[in-house]
């Protein structure tokens, strides 16, 4: 479990990073917090030609409040998000989720850009972005583009990010006064990837978005559940039951801890629990 040989670069500006990424011959791989990449390299499942360590790129840091949005630099670490007053005030769903992301030692290193860029199907943050309708700012030498979360995640460890592109920011809308959020996950041990988890956002117009993680090849929304829940101001017991029954539009995939049937069952349980917690808020 030792990584194969690689070159190492530690640029300090976005433009230097992009120049490295644009050079195909270097076979670059970005190193953010390294919490997934380093084990993959040590298992020799990843063998980059050049490791581009972006931890010294100061343009990628910082949590900034704008008029309508919160902009989070791609290299902001989980721990910084968890402790941020701006996040607590304006992105409460992010604050709810973070204590469940692995363990404190991992959160000290792991970054939001790294998590989004990896697109692990069991990670919490992609689901958060889906229900918040977040956007990902992606930069390359060709320019800057904003990709909505709903088209960004393509599959297991697969996103719309091209090899010459760098995730520079995550942009989340600020919470409106009457907006409500729900979150629940079930893991065998605290800090493990969840057997199933759900993030829910209810907008002021009662439009509801529901995204599950740990159940399919990527974080995935249930349109059937969203349709059923949208427009209802009262999350009645019956409505919650109906929502559970409607959860049939996801292709559930099993893993080591639970087969597809167990995933679907537990997804219904986390949906129920998250909705009940929202109701009792």
């Amino acid at each position, binding site marked *: *479990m*030792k*990584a*194969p*040989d690689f070159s190492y670069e530690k640029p300090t500006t976005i433009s230097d990073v992009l120049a490295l990424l644009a050079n195909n011959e270097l076979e670059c791989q970005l190193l953010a917090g390294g919490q997934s990449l380093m*084990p993959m390299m040590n*298992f*020799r499942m990843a063998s980059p030609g050049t490791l581009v360590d972006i931890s010294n790129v100061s343009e990628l840091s910082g949590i900034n409040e704008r008029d309508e949005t919160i902009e989070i630099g791609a290299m902001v670490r989980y721990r910084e998000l968890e402790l941020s007053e701006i996040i607590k005030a304006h992105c409460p769903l992010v604050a709810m989720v973070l204590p469940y992301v692995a363990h404190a030692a991992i959160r000290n290193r792991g970054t939001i850009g790294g998590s989004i860029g990896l697109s692990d199907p069991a990670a919490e943050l992609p689901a958060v972005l889906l229900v918040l309708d977040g956007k990902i700012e992606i930069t390359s030498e060709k320019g800057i583009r904003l990709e909505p979360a709903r088209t960004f995640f393509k599959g297991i460890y697969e996103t719309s990010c091209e090899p010459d592109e760098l995730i520079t920011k995550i942009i989340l809308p600020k919470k409106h006064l009457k907006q409500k959020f729900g979150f629940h996950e*079930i893991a*065998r*041990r*605290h*800090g*493990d*990837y969840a*057997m199933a988890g759900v993030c829910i956002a209810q907008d002021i117009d009662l439009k509801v978005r529901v995204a599950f993680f740990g159940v399919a090849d990527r974080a995935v929304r249930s349109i059937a559940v969203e349709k059923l829940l949208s427009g209802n101001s009262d999350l009645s017991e019956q409505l919650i039951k109906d929502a559970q029954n409607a959860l049939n539009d996801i292709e559930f995939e099993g893993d*080591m*801890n*639970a*087969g597809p*049937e*167990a995933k679907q*069952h*537990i997804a219904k*349980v986390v949906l129920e629990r998250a909705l009940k917690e929202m109701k009792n808020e």
Partner: protein
Amino acid sequence: MTGPATVFDKPTDYIGKSIPRSDAARLLRGKGRYVDDMQLPRMVHAVFLRSPYAHAKINAIDISQAMKLPGVVAIYTGKDIAQHVEPYVGVLSHLPGLRSPAQYPLAVDVARWQGEPVAVVICASRALGEDALEHIRVDYEKLTAVTDTLNALSPDAPLIHEEYDSNLAWKRQVEVGNLEEALAQDDVVVVEKQIKFGRHTGVTLETRATVCDYIPGDGQLIMYYAGQAPHMLQFILAKHLDMLEENVRVVAHDVGGSFGIKVHTYGDEIATAIVAKLLKRPVKFTADRLESFVTDIHARDHFVDAKIGVKKDGTIVGMGFNDFTGIGPFSMYPRTSAIECNQILNLTGAPYQFEHYHAVGHVVFQNKTLMCQYRAVGHPIAMAISDCMIEEAARVIGMDPVKIRRKNLIPDDAYPTKSTTGMRFDDLSHHACLDKLLEIMDYDALLEDQQNARGNGIYRGIGFVSLVEVTNPSPMFYGVGGAPIASQDGATVRLDAAGALHISSSVTEQGQGTNAILQQIAADVFGVSIERVKVTTGDTATVPYGGGTWASRGAGIGGEAMLLASHALKEQVLDTAAVILQAKPEDLDIAFGEIVNKGSRERKISLGDLAKIVYYRGNELPHDLKPELIATRHYRVTDFPFVFTNGAMAAHVEVDTNTGLIKILHFWAVEDCGRVINPQLVDDQIRGGVVQGIGGALYEECVYDSDGQMQNASMADYLVPMASEMPEITVAHVETYTKTSVLGAKGAGEAGTGGAPAAIMNAVNNALEPLNCGLWQMPMTPERVLKALGKI
């Protein structure tokens, strides 16, 4: 002085007290000396190429490209290594019929498990060695993997060893009375269950590691290793590498946990020693976590078809079972892979009185990692078979699980006695332990809470286990069967010129605090302050000969030897002091480093001053007085094959019937390990053991696919119990000293692991009772719970 029994005729200064471990401060500062920390001049690294297949013929190995890579010193294939080693066979004569073919350190013609080493690269660094592995071309011919234990015995199963007629390694039957007839009686209620126990492993924080150094001028091989039985390994290296034992030195410095994992013969470690001898330079091998998962021995993996018969009043008539266990492709050398099954046959039902017993064990070859002795060998299975069947029978006849135990547990005044299978017991206390358990857990309050909770749709359960634990083994465990495993241990105590004690012992320290209790015993019995006792263990060049630490023998056997040696030195010192002081030895004593008057406690002379007279100014002594100021004593258990410990435990669990998650709300353990030398160390041993038992019951499982590929060989996927999920574990003691020693200590290392799984399975099935279902498979995962509930 009339003899060592007078040791306890005074209040003790250290024995029985929670004295902090003297090595804790060093270890916590990161100053441990673990094998992987070692850097020797000219040291190279052994990096193993391992079979990616569970079963494959090796047609050819091409090392030519790999040899050209930077840093590569040499590459040896299985065939190369085989020329320098006498193969080993994991059988013992007291397990008649056990068969296993000769095994080489590396696979020679056929690889028989995923992870079996097939070649080794000797390289300047581990990383360069792993690069070289990618350039070794092996022509494998994939063979059908035999993975399922039951299918492995079917007549059309592929043979793992062509020279055998089947994949059966061993079969043993124990029959007492006539179970079939007894269970056929009208007034007997018979309960039958199939119980499955997952395969798991002991995950040590420090992985297996060795540095082997061959010193050509001396012809000496030094093996530094992270292990538990240095003298056993000394014998094995000498025998199989064709050396004299005195030319092999095995050293175990600090060891980061072992749990029985590190007491076996591993091919990669033997090959490392061979290569050091061939290259005449130091070679290091440190298993990484992936290698650990696929090469460290696994344990359990049992399929048990069990039945029990009880009368309506709860009297156990008899019990029986058929056990099938998969052990991998070989029986592990030298302890064999049949001991776990043998323990199950011997120990099932051992706390109880009953007449009829019929047990059959099948030990089966399969293409998975080798299975062998891991903490609480066989106990979790044996205790679960009897205690889970007893509680199931109690449910069927409508009896309280405590009442049925009261009725059948061997009475505390029945000792010495024998179990149904002939195990010899003395100084046990099942009823006293159960009493204490009920007292500390408040059983009645829990029952009331259970009823109330059920009304709210919350399912809590209470489960018990009464257990025995094999400790302090005599030569009847291994030595009798021809294994090079000492059952006696030695201790040396030496007084230096400054009045400090230097003690050494053949038992070893793996993190559990053995060294600390040896210091406590020596300081207490001899009479010095514990800060002035320096301890050495783990080095065959300096410590007395002995077996090391396994089967809960460190305190009971190593501790007794230390007591005897300390007492012997004390007598010698008092004889010398009496001459110097012109007093009678029986009027003198030693206390905190001073010779004192026994009655008045008046200080007479310090040990340092006495030692200086002996060592420097012997002219002041009479010519016929020749004090040595050093004493060695050895001890082995002679009266019994083993000294059994007993205990009673209970688990309180809550089953989330929606998610299938099981939460352990509280765990209680009452243990009778005889004299408790250090309460904190014993309590934490028991807690640690319980946590490993919880691992087996709820979390840990080596998951294999049908091709024999382990699916979860990483710390992300193989779930060990973690602090967040662990309950409060309350520990209490009943102290019935064993009469086999002066110290009176029995072992305490394995009870938690042996008992917890049964208590938890009982608690879960107690919780599920009103839902008319049960779960009989460990680990009890959420998915299995949901299936048992019919939710999926």
